[in-house]
């Protein structure tokens, strides 16, 4: 498939928009699941940028990085969801503002 119709700038722009959305989600949301999803969004924004640049430069390293990120993300999901379940069990809530045991 020919890939040159869409210019690299658009990919990077989309990636930036997705990343900022993810960041906003992490910073503004209080629901742990949603924060979690936002983190995934940030990761995938980075993935998109990596894939785009890899294609632009014809270098496979970016693709390889994408696979690493996906693997790490999968592991993160497993651990993160388990943590959220554990938090819910003790706090009966997944509002992260309820978790402020470390308040100084």
């Amino acid at each position, binding site marked *: 498939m020919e890939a040159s119709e869409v210019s690299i700038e658009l990919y990077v722009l989309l990636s930036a928009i997705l990343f900022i959305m993810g960041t906003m989600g*992490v*910073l503004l949301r*209080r629901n742990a699941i949603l924060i979690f999803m936002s983190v995934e969004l940030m990761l995938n924004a980075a993935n998109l940028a990596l894939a785009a640049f890899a294609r632009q430069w014809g270098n496979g390293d970016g693709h390889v990085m994408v696979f690493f990120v996906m693997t790490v993300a999968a592991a993160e999901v497993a651990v993160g969801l388990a943590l959220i379940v554990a938090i819910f069990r003790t706090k009966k809530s997944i509002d992260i503002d309820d*978790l*402020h*045991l470390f*308040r*100084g």
Partner: protein
Amino acid sequence: MENFFDLVPLVVFVPLVGLLINLFTGKHLGERGVGIVAVGASGIAFLISLLLWLAQVDTGYKPVVVDLPLFSDWISIPADGVEIPWQFRVDTLSVTMMLVVTFVGTIIHLYAVGYMHGDERFPRFFVYMNLFLVFMLILVTGNNFLMMFVGWEGVGLCSYLLIGFWFDKPGGVGWKNSDAARKAFIVNRVGDFGLVLGVLITFWTFGTLDFYKPDELPVAAPHAAEAAEEPVFAPEIPHEAEPHIEGPMGVFNQAEVWLEEGGHDVNFGMFSLSFESTITVITLLFLLGATGKSAQIPLFVWLPDAMAGPTPVSALIHAATMVTAGVYMMVRSNVFYHASDAASFVVALIGATTAIVAGFIAVGQWDIKRVLAYSTISQLGFMVAAVGVGAYAAAMFHLVTHAFFKALLFLGSGSVIHGMEHGHHHMAHGGHDHDDEFDPQDMRYMGGLRHKMPRTYWTYLFGTLALAGIIPFAGFWSKDEILLDALKAGVDDARLEGYLAFVLLVMAAAFTAFYMWRQMALVFYGKPRHAAAEHAEESSNLMVYPLIVLAFFSLVIGVINVPSGFPILGAIFGEHEFTSWLEHAVTYAHAASFNVLLASFAVVLALVAIYVARAIYNDRALETLGQQDPLELDERTEGLFAVAKAKLYWDDAYFRYLIFPYRRAAYWLAEQLDWRFWHDYVHKTVVQKNFHIATEFLTQPVDKGIIDRGFNSLGRLMQIIAQRIRVIQTGYVRTYAWTVLLGTLLVVFIILFPVIRGMLGL
């Protein structure tokens, strides 16, 4: 045959292996196994000694020095010229001692297997006995004074361990036993102090402790013509050998050479002594050592108490071997003693006085073993006196014969005690009252054992006759030779100590015959005076056979040294065989020819003494014997007997004039010096008070004031700082996320800053 000499370390090592086996596996071997190992080790040592004897005969009696492989540099400080190798010396003197020690030792080990039967510490006993053999053999085989000293102390240790072997007997007996052990050890320390000093001075004087260097022959200096007076031995004596040997010499030959040259002073730093005086000092210090180990005046008091040990111990250590170590040491040092007239005088006087004093005390004793103990002291006095009058060969001869007949007497007394205990046991089971007063060693409870224990009786009779000096028993030959040599020293050399020793020794010999027959009468004749004696039984074969062997030797061993001119026997067994054998190792061994008058006088005297004893301890006296001796009942001898019974007040004098004052001084020092001054003043007042002041200073101003306050302030400072900055920790995750974002942006900005600056053209 010369290869046999290399076996000499085994004489020491075989008993060592035996004792190690018994030490580690004795509990599992059982009495039989332990006995086989112990007797076997001793027996093999005897066989090796026999081989060494044959090798000596085969090689013309040449003294041989054998290095111990891997251990020959025992003490070696080349920079200071100190060389004390671990070397074994095989010469006729050491082989004689080895043969006596291992042969009598083996017989006594065998006897002990029977005697110690059923003892709860059976293996330990034989471990100690073998250990004793190890040290005794080191003592006699060492080629230097330090090895001899190692053995000397080692046998002392074994003596201590074995005297106190029954330290846990009930009813205070155990305490008595361990007291006796300590007494022996402490009294011996006094003597050992003399020996150590003597050895040190020897080393200072000669720079070596070797008796002789390897390949060095003992030679008398040419002026010592009197030694060669007896032409009989001339061809065999190496007197013609070169007296001035090249290279370093052992102490004895060096002493000969220096005495010959004269004018050698020994520098002791603050003062110097002539060589002759140094030798006198050394020999007198050695004599002090000998008075400890060989139980002479003034240190003999430990030996009678040492009878607290099991009887085989008394026989082996305190009669036949260890106590003769002092005599061996002096004979080994005969060159020194020969050189010092003053020391010889003292030695002769001490020996002869001991002989008569101990013989006198023996008359007043009731304990069967104590009589023998004093007899041993008396006989050792004979040997020491012989050394004093210069009769070194006679001293060794008496040592050998005495080893046999005194071991026999002790083992016989052990058999008697065993029989008495058996009878007492039997009596207790027979429903009689078990009287706790009974002492199986007290001769007052005995009597009539001749019929109960016939074999013990006959062997004991042999021992008694040998000790009394009745021809042809062993004691006759050796005692006669000592008397003759003493008289000769008086008449021929005009030496006062010769006459003195002769008179005292003749009296001692009469006492010997008297107290031995008193013992025979009290133990074996008459009728049983106690139910235990009534029921006494002959001991087991294991105990009786050794008695028979020793009895045989007590009868015949004297023929090894038949005096010259003695009819018939001299032709059969050769004359002076033992003396000429010893002459290859003992420079001043010399022999005496037979004197019919003196021999007859001695024998008649002994017979008269026995006759007197028989008359006093007749059947009627024995039958009516209560707690008192017939001598005590007669008012003419009452006082003398009391003195003898009280051991001449010798122990009492030590207690009154040494031990009590010492204790009072010790108490006084403990009270005044230790408690009042040291504890109350120094500790309480000086040390404790100042300590308090110092610690008070350190705790209050230093610790509490400076250190504590400093760290507390530091802590408070930290708290204040922490209070201020804790507020930034909100605990909200989103706050942290913001921080991370801002931080990341900051980092990105810093990285990109040069690029931005470039783009803006700054």
